[in-house]
């Protein structure tokens, strides 16, 4: 099967940007998300796997085959670009079968595959259109169709949904995930949207400044963030990080904090964001902002004095200097 192994790969442009000795593995048939803020090296990593950039050092293997110095075509991958990279002068059908034509696949086989793929991505009625005559979501589907028609075992996606509106993004998220599972592809998916990462991934790699910050299943990143960076990046709103002792920071998720009668941490309500199913109360605790999630509607005027409480098992501790997670028992 076609698992992807990235081993100690480095790439910089004259010492600027890029990635520094990163290693990870994408299991065959799984969806791996590379997550991180812009400039963290996630797109670079994807382009290195695709062969669009040459590694400075390290090796990449796909399905047990060393592809480190092979051309993109020889790596037997497909790729979806952020801009979709559709050929503007070709119609939908020609765009989808571009790769088959390049490889000299016969007309009958081409037509048959096109029909199948067009059905899968729901474009059968638009095959004659030019990309400029399509909506953003339809263009996205063309790009998807072009990626899956080759039946490459590995599919790479570079922020494929970032140009779509929120509703469509949600729709395509589900669709891409089910497509990946149905076709059994190994997929590497780059995004800066943690919701996308959490909902789609089998495994998430959170990156920062060319390093891997944490590599784990979505629930691991959420429940056991390895650093305050992960804690702050994952979750909406993210984890509250407060000053603790001299050398430590304390983290609590907003949903684990409650308003209590007495003996809590004194706080002042700054504002309340009502989201429908729940409300986020933004409080001021000694100059730091702490968000509290409350179920349902909550009306507290700004300036109200409240007391915040949480249970010790929900506490995360981070080293102040390194930001690294400390063992939970350090507290007791």
């Amino acid at each position, binding site marked *: 099967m076609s698992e992807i192994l990235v081993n100690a790969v480095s790439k910089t442009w004259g010492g600027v940007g890029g990635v520094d000795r990163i290693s990870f593995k994408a299991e065959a048939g799984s969806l791996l998300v590379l997550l991180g803020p812009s400039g963290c090296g996630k797109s670079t990593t994807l382009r290195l796997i695709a062969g*669009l950039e040459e590694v400075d050092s390290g090796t990449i293997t796909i399905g047990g085959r060393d592809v480190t110095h092979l051309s993109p075509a020889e790596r037997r*991958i*497909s*790729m979806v670009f952020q801009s979709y990279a559709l*050929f503007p002068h070709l119609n939908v059908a020609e765009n989808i079968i571009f790769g088959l034509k390049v490889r000299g696949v016969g007309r009958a086989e081409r037509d048959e595959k096109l029909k199948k793929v067009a059905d899968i991505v729901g474009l059968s009625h638009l095959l004659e259109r030019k990309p400029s005559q399509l909506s953003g979501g339809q263009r996205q589907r063309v790009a998807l169709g072009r990626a899956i028609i080759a039946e490459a075992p590995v599919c790479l996606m570079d922020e494929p949904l970032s140009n779509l509106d929120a509703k469509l993004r949600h729709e395509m998220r589900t669709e891409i995930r089910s497509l990946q599972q149905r076709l059994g592809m190994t997929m590497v998916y780059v995004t800066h949207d943690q919701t996308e990462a959490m909902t789609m991934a089998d495994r998430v790699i959170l990156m920062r400044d060319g390093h891997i910050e944490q590599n784990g299943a979505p629930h691991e990143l959420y429940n056991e963030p390895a650093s305050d960076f992960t804690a702050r990046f994952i979750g909406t709103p993210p984890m509250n990080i407060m000053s603790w002792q001299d050398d430590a920071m304390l983290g609590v998720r907003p949903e684990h904090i409650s308003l209590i009668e007495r003996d809590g941490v004194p706080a002042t309500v700054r504002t309340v964001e009502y989201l429908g199913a729940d409300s986020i109360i933004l409080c001021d605790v000694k100059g730091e902002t702490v968000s509290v999630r409350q179920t349902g509607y909550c009306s507290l005027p700004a300036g109200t004095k409240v007391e915040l409480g949480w249970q010790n098992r929900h506490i995360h501790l981070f080293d102040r200097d390194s930001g690294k997670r400390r063992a939970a028992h350090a507290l007791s």
Partner: protein
Amino acid sequence: MVAAVMSATEPKAARRRNWAVSVNAWLLLLPAIVLLATFTHYPILATLYHSFFSLGRSGPAEFIGLDNYRYMLDDDVFWQVLRNNFIFALATVPTSIALALLMAVWVDKKIVGRSFLRLAFFTPTVLPMIAVANIWLFFYTPDYGLLDQFLKSLGFSGHNWLGDPSTVMTCLAVMVVWKEAGFFMIFYLAALQSIPPELKEAASVEGASRWYFFRRVTFPLLMPTTLFISINALINSFKLVDQLVIMTKGGPNNASSLLLYYIYEVAFNFWDTTYAATLTVTLISILAAVALTKFVYLDRRIHYQ
């Protein structure tokens, strides 16, 4: 919406305002209209008018209908310069376009000295045609010109390049290609840089070779530029005759004369202004046909982004 409601309640005020807007617009257009009418539209109509009259050297000009056109069709020199002009266009237009594309693709790559190359390719465009003609006149001079000196060093004998009817057109065509290609290269370069680089990456993931990508993606996407350039080149091949004044005066024996140069000769050497008007109408018709072909036929068959 608002305008409709207003005109229903206050039709007069609305109409007055419409009128004021129109007057304002026409006043703003007036300077351009005056200039165009005086120096373009009126001369065209006047030329057309004069082409139906006799010269009137002895007495008043008389209306002679299509006599001037009949004379033109019997004029051997007219047919020769027209043929020359088409050969000249056929020789220069495709060559300069191909050369421009080649240069543009070359200097679009990340190579050392790219800016210098671009500048070098563009330099001939900056030079005035008169200067270019003088430089190339020296190249082609028999015996001590650059070309002959070079050929002599290889053991060939001298040749009167511009004085031989069989070589003069080729010599002029080479020079014009040299002058024009750099200019067209700039358009191709701009078009090449507007093609998103992801297209190339997407194609390379699919395994397309560079030649395949050029043939199936780059070249079709450059078609609007190619059309624009070819129309310009074609029009230029009828319009640019400065070099003839310097280099050959249309000779030898009209072998290098072009339609516009012939018009100039007829009008200002032979002072046959009505026949010159007739020839001018013919030239304008040819150019108009070229422009119409572009707008009516070719534009529909090309992908514009």
